């Protein structure tokens, strides 16, 4: 069966682990349990009638205490950049991580998600910033691990992009 490695990247406490847990086991906890190193989980999805096992590398959040280790990135077929809508600084972290990935393994498919949509009243990342990212060609989803919103989509879209690379203009999925 086709097996694809996907890295979850983003600042700390943006909800990477929560998104993976929601996706793999459909649970969510309000408790924060920071990830050190990497937690590896698997989930099989169907893309174009074919089973694909996603090996999800839930990496620790990047901050002054931990920097992303390049060896964790190698061999990835794609990655998900997670931001926390309530903290603007997580957008800068995502941009920097994106650069790091491109520098380390080159351009591979990626999708970004701004998490914590359930707290949208407290958001610091505004529409202009989101449009700016989209203007750079990013796929930006808005979601919430807590509500389960946008979760299937973010993994689904990335899996599709990985399995069906599109040199010709992409038709909307």
């Amino acid at each position, binding site marked *: 069966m086709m097996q694809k490695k996907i890295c979850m990247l983003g600042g700390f406490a943006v909800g990477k682990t929560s998104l993976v847990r929601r996706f793999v086991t459909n649970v969510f906890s309000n408790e924060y349990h*920071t*990830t050190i190193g990497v*937690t*590896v989980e698997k989930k099989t999805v169907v893309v174009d009638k074919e089973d694909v096992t996603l090996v999800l590398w839930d990496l620790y959040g990047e901050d002054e*205490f931990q920097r992303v280790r390049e*060896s964790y990135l190698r061999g990835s077929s794609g990655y998900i950049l997670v931001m926390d809508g309530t*903290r603007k600084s997580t957008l800068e972290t995502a941009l920097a991580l994106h650069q790091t990935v491109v520098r380390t393994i080159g351009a591979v498919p990626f999708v970004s998600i701004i998490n914590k949509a359930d707290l949208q009243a407290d958001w610091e990342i505004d529409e202009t910033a989101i449009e700016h990212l989209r203007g*750079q060609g990013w796929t930006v989803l808005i979601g919430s691990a807590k509500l389960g919103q946008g979760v299937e989509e973010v993994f689904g879209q990335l899996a599709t992009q990985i399995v069906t690379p599109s040199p010709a203009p992409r038709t909307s999925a």
Partner: protein
Amino acid sequence: MTDAVSTPDSPDHALFSRVLSALDIVVFERDEESGAYRLHGASPEWWSQCVDPDHRATLDLSRCSPFLQDYLVGRHPAWEGNLGTIEKSGPWTESDQQGGSMTLEASLLSLGSRKLLLIECLGSSFEDMRSIVQRARERVLAEDLTAKLHRNTETQLIDQLEASERTKDEALTLLQHLGIAALVLDVGGLVTFASRRALEVLGITATDVIGQHWEQVLPLSQPDCVLIQSMLEGSSRMESGGPFCLQGPQARWLAVEIHRDLCHPSRHIMVLSDRTELHALRQALHEQASFHDLVGKSSAMLRVYQLVRDVAQVDTTVLIEGETGTGKELIARAIHSSSTRKHKPFIAANCAGLTDSILTSQLFGHKRGAFTGAIQDQQGLFEAAEGGTLFLDEIGDIPPQVQTALLRVLQEKEITRLGEAKPRKVNVRVVAATHHNLSEDVVRGSFRADLLYRIRIARVSLPPLRERREDIPLLAQSLLGTICASTGKTVERLNPDALRVLMSYSWPGNVRELRSAVEFAVISCKGNEVFPADLPPEIAGTPVGLSPSIFIPLSSQDEKTRLLAALSEAKGNRTEAAKRLGISRATFYRRLVELEIRPF
């Protein structure tokens, strides 16, 4: 160094095993031939939770750990003869056989020619480290939150304070109430009050403003400040000026009015009106008619400008399609100068009519002696355009071998100079142009399909001039201006008849041909107006009326003359005269009646 790991039958094997079990580490040795990992010594208790019992002695990567499976495939300096290097994988957590999870870390090292993999289960010290990091992060999050709360309360308090201050002063209350953007300045130019609307317009809070000098509050250019200062010092009751540009990440345009406060003669009220939108509209109007060096405001060209702006935002390869003379290079330049690469070189190369080897050496460069005549090392256009844009005109004409090389460059982002073996990295955006239909070339087999897909990631199609005739007056006038400037002649305008001729011609050579026609006319023109006779004969000779839809309204006197002339040329045949004028018979009749021309 000799091999230092004890083999099962060596005397210190027992000791080695004991040491390992005391350290709680599993040791595998990689067998170079089979690539298998063989267990050394006894495995600790926890390891049996990670693997099923049948697979304890050798490491079955596909079963036991997706992490290791991935981690071990890469290159590892510690296994490549770098003795003494210990490489750590970093911690990883995976589910174990019992449905729980376990955090492990691997170390790689070589001893002599033997490659060892040590796996360790991270225990309490790891958990301690984790909780320290966790606490630090929780602290950062909590501080973020408090700071945010503080900011909110602070603005609320200031707003309230301001509101109560304001009610004391009726003039100010009025300003506030009417939603006027106003600053009140004391005699020294310090801001004592800012209306809510003013804060909105300036995008700042009251604390940033009150007590500051107005020059600090309004980030204007030096000359603008001087001008406003003189308005403040003036003696009249009211002065106004602007719009002035407020510098900042998003430039704003403000008109400024200064009023002397009649109740408090020592203070001034500065009323600001936001003209940004107006300014942007003006700008847009101006841009509509021209974009970079492109002229035209037909809907076809407006679409092209928008496309150029969109394409400039991304860094993909672009294919510009258009007939000869439509201005493909101008489009390429416009894309370059609207893109983030604008401060780097723009290099244009024409690929038409060059042989294989000349084109290869021109694009990729060569080493001295690579061919006869290569007397020194020479960098190619790709290297010359480093960081910028390389415009490849007539891409459809490049020979097959160069197509293959170009495809490689686009894929690998590296070039190899002719005669060299080592590739060099290049970072260049390729913008290509063609007047061919490349899809047809692909079908015909003269152009590689994969190269076409690579270069046509984005595409801009330029309309031929005959499909945007409404741009001809604007283009001709603009060309007239440039040509006069460069020749020193003063020809001011195109006579309506000359314009009509220009608009009826089919322009197979597009804007380039129009330019030469105007150049020709400027040279032959005697006065300060271009007449049809000044135009090149092949254009002046076209029977007006090739395109019946084109009919330029003229002043009635001019038109009367035209109609009469046409009638006389057609020897009184009205159908023929209408045809010569490029209008329908019905229109011709109607105009005859309206202009009171009695047919002969």
